[in-house]
């Protein structure tokens, strides 16, 4: 009789629990998507720090324009702007699949001081670059604290988010991206580098130089203020001259 009870629990109650958990995860995902969908566009004054091994870029200040679903531009009043490739994009809206998606409950994890619910989202279509997104959600505030997005062509993008006064509408005060970057190499015969006497070419180093290794790069964006849902013309996002 006891065995029968145990079997009953295993066969019926556990799947019920799993279904309930998945339903919760689905609901959580939909609620968060809904919160993200509130923001149709925004203009924000931002400070950007690029920390990629081969890039020496000073901290950049500018205006970041966003228009749903995927338009984004950093304007530096005549200066050069550097953003991760368009296909990567830098908003939660784009890193979290829209439309049909399978949501899997992955338990709870601690992100800093916040206990977060972890869900995995698999897009329902293979037309998108995203294969899988893992989201750490602060359930009490319905905010994504961290995401990990595996893409087909752009490696894995990790994103940490910090919220402040715009948390109500799901907009972060600071985003830190961790992106996969390839090593950068140009022939010395073309660039005619000034030899600073610190890197002698050795035969042992040569095979390493040939490989296109991937490394992690970090991009930090601090949002100083937002102007939300005031409408932005598509002309703003037109490509500037190179």
């Amino acid at each position, binding site marked *: 009789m006891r065995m029968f009870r145990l079997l009953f629990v295993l066969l019926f109650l556990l799947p019920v629990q799993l279904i309930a958990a998945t339903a919760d995860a689905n609901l959580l995902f939909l609620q968060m998507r809904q919160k993200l969908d509130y923001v149709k566009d925004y203009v924000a004054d931002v400070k950007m720090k690029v920390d990629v091994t081969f890039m020496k870029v000073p901290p950049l200040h500018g205006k970041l324009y966003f228009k749903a679903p995927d338009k984004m531009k950093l304007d530096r009043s005549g200066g050069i*702007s550097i953003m991760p490739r368009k296909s990567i994009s830098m908003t939660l809206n784009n890193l979290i699949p829209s439309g049909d998606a399978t949501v899997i409950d992955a338990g709870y994890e601690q992100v800093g001081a916040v206990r977060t619910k972890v869900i995995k989202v698999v897009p329902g279509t293979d037309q998108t670059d995203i294969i899988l997104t893992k989201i750490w959600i602060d359930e009490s505030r319905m905010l994504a604290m961290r995401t990990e997005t595996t893409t087909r062509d752009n490696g894995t993008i990790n994103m940490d988010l910090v919220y402040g006064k715009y948390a109500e509408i799901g907009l972060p005060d600071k985003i830190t991206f961790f992106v996969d970057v390839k090593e950068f190499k140009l022939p010395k015969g073309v660039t005619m580098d000034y030899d600073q*006497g610190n890197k002698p070419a050795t035969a042992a180093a040569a095979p390493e130089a040939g490989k296109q290794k991937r490394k992690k790069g970090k991009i930090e964006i601090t949002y100083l203020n937002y102007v939300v849902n005031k409408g932005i013309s598509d002309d703003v996002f037109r490509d500037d001259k190179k």
Partner: protein
Amino acid sequence: MLRLELYKIFRRPRTYISFAIITAITFVIQLAMLVDGSSFMDFALQGVGEQFDIQGNVLNGYLVTYLILQSLLIHIPLLVALVAGDALAGEANLGTLRLLLTKPVSRAKLVLVKFAGSLLYTLLLLIWLAVVGLGLSLILFGDGDMINLKSDAFVMLLRDDIMWRYMAAFGFAALAMTSVAALALLLSAFADNSIGPIISTMGIIVVLTILSNLELPLFNIIKPYLLTTHMIGWKGFFDDPVPYEAIQHSAIVLLAYTILFVAITVLYFNKKDIKS
């Protein structure tokens, strides 16, 4: 005496050929960049462009000037040699050197005046390059942040942080060209016609430039001692952070070469049997 030397230099049509060549090369590069600069930039930035989206006026006057300076890397020393290589040998060729030495001036002073004349010509050449290269490029392409592509790095400099770098780079280039002028003057002291020292200076600069750029361990031993390795020290000002120590070292090497060349010229010329 210096005034007379300058009169001689600037009376010759050959002197102005250098200014014309610099103007022509600069115009050609600027025209090419105006017409097809975007495809050039796409090619140059393809390594970074795969991963990052770069927007704005990338092809601005600062970058075009950098490209001009880069392509004139070998040419300017040759133009300097045109005048400095002719300084003593030209006089010998015309048969005026002996006449010149009948004046109550020491041979050392004559060499130094010839060197000073070549130096002034070199400075004017660089000022002209700054005017047509930097000045005109800024008018044609506007200003903006500058991208400097190194073999293993992508350096971006903010607009307000560039002009001083050009000033410093032109200052350093003047030092580098001074050493070339000293070399040409030295070779000029050995010859009795100007073609020899001019061609010899060109040959030495071309060979040393090739050696400086060959990435072979064998040449790494001699690279730190080559004039041409240090002549491109001006590029250091477009790095971030600026490698001041390396630039200072290069400046000292160039200065040492200049002093050495001029000293040997004076010593040799003092003992030279002047026959023409």
